[in-house]
């Protein structure tokens, strides 16, 4: 790695650590008015008021956990059906200067589910989506899918914090407040900065031009900057163009790339600070933050140096992978020359640590262990720092498991934030942890047995297995970062099964999380005694880190060994 690479990482870390308390403190006030009036309260209340009136939402109304969950499901069902209809009918709708037709049913299903679930897996490629679909259908879900994740996390925090309470807040209020007070202001400011750096934002139809070399080229237009901001800020990841953030109109230079990295990570990390504030125990928030941060940094420092070192197969083939004044060096297959291998490594590690899934290089072209690290990042359940809200509640589920294990060691009933963790909560925790393995490994195994699915592999051998496992892992974890090797991926098998896995990956974990929140919220707080295992210490952070690694290792090690690890050994040692 070069000095430039280390400097970029240093700047990113400093900015992240500095903005976590600022953004997190603001978010805590948005969700818990007893902490004080958040900035811009008058303005945002004026926007929210009419929304509540039109939608007949009682802003002071509280919901039991199951009503909260059913509200989430009802909202999601209606919005996914509307998006499905819009995708099918876009050829007859407005703002379609390139006259794109409606999508076919299987692709409409896959795409509607993908954006509903914050996955933003794009099986559709370029040149199929009208501006109206981009701006209303997809962008709407970019906001509300992130807000729904945040709402579930906030409800879960309330369950941990409240005493003897039957309710967890109001889903509709949490949804509206997240969109109006957090996501929209952030997206607005980010969009302005993106435009200032050259990200396009217009309603032009595509233009055919002749290049200086005499070749014909199509120059696309579109409202890109405004989509780009929420794409990253809401951990969505669905690019305006198929090439995503590798496209110069989405991510033209190093400044936009750094801003994108910050946007990908900012809200998930800030949620840990908001958690500490709402729990009235900031150390609890910092313990979760530090565990997430170390996981993210360790994985990043595996991917980036692997890509910087280059690929021995390419060296054998005659490629020059050295760092020189004219090239960034390293494994440049599938990477943009304006970013280089190291920055790609940062982006790949960050986008798979969160539920973002945007890419600035092709993950299928990462070194075997680099690609494997991105895969494992998602297998963690995206808790480092994860998606908007979903990262926090994922890590808090691991925290409950950690205190349960610690309780078993010393023979005491486990407690977290003064709440006893008992049988019903642990049943739901285990359910939460088993569901990903069932769906990811089950569907990947089925794909290996189905000829049409197997024939979509871009590569044979261990890399082909990784392509299949990666697809189901990113789908269940609502990441959406295509490994890029499956082709064609727009098939009946993949469109349907990945759609089902995305739905399961979104809602199957959220329901037990809300149930645990509901169960804990009605409990009393037990005063800490000498036998209480403290959860605001570095020791607990270490335990939490270990629990994440062990659970994921025990679940996925065999398939990771058969995919990326075997590929690495074959490539380096010929065994």
């Amino acid at each position, binding site marked *: 790695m070069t000095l430039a690479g280390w400097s970029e990482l240093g700047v990113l870390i400093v900015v992240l650590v500095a903005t976590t308390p600022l953004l997190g403190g603001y978010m805590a006030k948005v969700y818990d008015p007893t902490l004080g009036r958040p900035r811009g309260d008058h303005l945002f209340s004026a926007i929210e008021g009419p929304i509540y009136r039109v939608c007949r939402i009682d802003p002071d109304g509280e919901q039991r956990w199951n009503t909260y969950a059913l509200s989430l499901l009802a909202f999601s069902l209606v919005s996914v059906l509307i998006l*499905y209809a819009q995708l099918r009918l876009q050829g007859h709708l407005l703002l379609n200067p390139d006259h794109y037709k409606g999508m076919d049913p299987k692709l409409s*299903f896959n795409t509607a589910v993908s954006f509903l679930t914050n996955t933003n897996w794009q099986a559709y490629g370029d040149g199929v989506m009208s501006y109206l679909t981009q701006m209303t259908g997809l962008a709407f879900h970019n906001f509300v899918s992130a807000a729904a994740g945040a709402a579930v996390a906030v409800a879960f925090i309330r369950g941990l914090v409240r005493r003897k309470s039957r309710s967890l807040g109001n889903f509709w209020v949490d949804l509206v407040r997240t969109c109006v007070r957090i996501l929209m202001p952030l997206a607005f400011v980010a969009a302005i900065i993106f435009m200032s750096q050259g990200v396009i934002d217009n309603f032009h139809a595509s233009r055919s031009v002749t290049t200086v070399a005499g070749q014909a080229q199509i120059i696309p237009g579109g409202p890109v900057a405004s989509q780009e901001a929420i794409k990253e800020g809401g951990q969505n990841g669905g690019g305006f163009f198929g090439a995503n953030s590798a496209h110069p109109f989405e991510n033209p230079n190093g400044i936009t790339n750094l801003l994108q990295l910050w946007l990908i990570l900012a809200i998930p990390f800030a949620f840990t600070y908001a958690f500490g504030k709402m729990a009235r125990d900031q150390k609890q928030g910092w313990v979760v933050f530090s565990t997430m941060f170390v996981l993210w940094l360790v994985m990043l420092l595996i991917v980036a140096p692997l890509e910087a070192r280059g690929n021995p197969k390419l060296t054998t083939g005659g490629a020059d992978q050295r760092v020189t004044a004219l090239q960034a060096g390293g494994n440049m297959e599938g990477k943009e020359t304006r970013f280089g291998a190291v920055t790609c490594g940062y982006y790949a590690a960050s986008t798979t640590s969160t539920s973002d899934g945007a890419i600035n290089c092709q993950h299928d072209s990462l070194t075997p262990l680099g690609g494997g690290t991105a895969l494992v990042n998602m297998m963690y359940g995206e808790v480092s720092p994860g998606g908007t809200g979903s990262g926090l509640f994922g890590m808090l589920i691991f925290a409950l498991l950690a205190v349960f294990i610690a309780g078993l060691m010393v023979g005491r009933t486990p407690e977290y934030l003064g709440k006893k963790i008992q049988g019903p909560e642990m049943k739901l925790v285990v359910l939460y942890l088993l569901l990903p393995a069932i769906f990811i490994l089950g569907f990947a195994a089925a794909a290996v047995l189905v000829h049409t699915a197997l024939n979509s592999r871009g590569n044979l051998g261990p890399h082909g297995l990784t392509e299949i496992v990666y697809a189901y892992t990113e789908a269940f974890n609502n990441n959406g970062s295509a490994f890029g090797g499956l082709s064609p991926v727009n098939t009946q098998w993949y469109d349907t099964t990945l759609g089902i896995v995305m739905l399961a990956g979104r809602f199957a974990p959220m329901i037990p999380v809300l149930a645990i929140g509901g169960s804990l919220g009605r409990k009393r707080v037990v005063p800490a005694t000498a036998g209480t295992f403290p959860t605001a210490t570095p020791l607990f952070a270490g335990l939490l880190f270990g629990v994440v690694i062990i659970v994921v290792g025990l679940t996925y090690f065999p398939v990771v060994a058969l995919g990326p690890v075997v590929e690495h050994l074959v490539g380096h040692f010929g065994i």
Partner: protein
Amino acid sequence: MNDFAFVAIILVFFGLATLFVAACDRIIGQDEDLVATPEPSHESIAA
């Protein structure tokens, strides 16, 4: 598959999710059991 099949998949999924909510509610039990329990004092816990 046509529109009907995909809409049916979505409806079936959300139907199952609703049943899952009910199942999770059965796992955690009724509210009254725990809410009615009095808050313990520090001394009683220590004892």
